[in-house]
């Protein structure tokens, strides 16, 4: 048996990873997972792996599983409001199914 849960995905600049993580924890998420990412968006190309003289300017993707769709949406809205005026980034939600044994 599986249960419905939600996932919020945040793609943004590595330099604010810690701050975003703090926001996520504010909403009581049980954890999060972070990936190094490169990308292209409205604010130009962001590379990864290559020697970046200007460190911290590559992307990270942060994924958070939350028990409810509501929490996921709150995180997405808060992160977008707090950071995406000044930092490049996008955020979106997905539906996921979790196993009974997990608590999120």
């Amino acid at each position: 048996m599986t249960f419905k849960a939600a996932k919020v995905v945040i793609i943004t600049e590595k330099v604010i990873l810690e701050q975003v993580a703090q926001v996520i924890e504010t909403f009581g998420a049980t954890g999060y997972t972070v990936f190094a990412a490169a990308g292209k968006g409205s604010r130009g190309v962001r590379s990864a792996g290559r020697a970046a003289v200007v460190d911290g300017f590559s992307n990270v993707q942060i994924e958070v599983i939350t028990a409810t769709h509501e929490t996921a949406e709150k995180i997405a809205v808060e992160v977008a409001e707090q950071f995406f005026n000044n930092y490049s980034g996008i955020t979106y939600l997905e539906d996921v199914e979790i196993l009974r044994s997990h608590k999120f």
Partner: protein
Amino acid sequence: MSRFLVQFQSPALAFLVGGMLLAAFRSKLEIPDAIYQFCVFMLLMRIGLEGGLEIRDAELADMILPAFIALIVGCGIVLIGCVVLAYLPGVKTEDAIATAGLFGAVSASTLAAAMLMLEEQAITYEAWVPALYPFMDIPALIVAIVLANVYLAKKKHGPTAKTKIWPIVTNSLRGSALSALLLGLALGLFTNPEVVFESFYDPLFRGLLSVLMLIMGMEAYARLNELRKVAHWYAVYAAVAPLVHGLIAFGLGYIAHVFTGFSPGGVILLAVMAGSSSDISGPPTLRAAIPSANPAAYIGSSTSVGTPIAIAVGIPLYVALAEAVFGL
């Protein structure tokens, strides 16, 4: 004058230009990020260790005036930069402040390139001079961040807001560049790293700097695009400011030479630090502390124009000037 020409063939500059050419020809050569980070670490440890080893034997009194000049120059550059940039059309105030901050701060790789050039030209300096780095770098970043915060706070809440300086200082000390430099300094001062310095950090210095210069060149070219998207005045500032800053510091250094016997080589390095703009720890520090400033403006200015000018024109210029002034 002959020295001036020879320097264009010096390895540091040659690798910098080589990196730019590679990027211009869209070469697929990539130096991995891990190697870049290691090169930076090694360079800063090398500078720090030697500084620490030398400060041990140095007259501390000799350091006071140059350190004070470094501090004054660092802060002064930022203040001048803000005023100048604010006058230029199409320049946002936050961007002006961040750019001035970056040019006030110091580039370890530019400094290292100058150290090697002096060595090649057999011009000596007090070995603790490179250790003045933080005296110029930190104050410059702090002034810029404070100015930006004051400006933004006023814009939002009127003139009552206050900015805390201490967190900015610690945050800046924690950055990877200053951490490595200070660690090296401490190890040089309090422990006995002579053997490892002589067998590892010192001999690899020159080679790793050449790799670093190559990377800086590739990055300089890559960031030109970003610079094109912002006001063209940034490019003008970035081309002129390094030399002006260097000459100001050269003048003040000359005064220290007259009064306290500060070495000609030391005067040159002081000018190089002033003329350089931070590439390693400055940008992320400013990105985090002045979020609304556009990184394309300040990083583009510094990396694409400021650093190449500081190395290719600035260093030979100060050396030539020192030849003329001190009759080297």
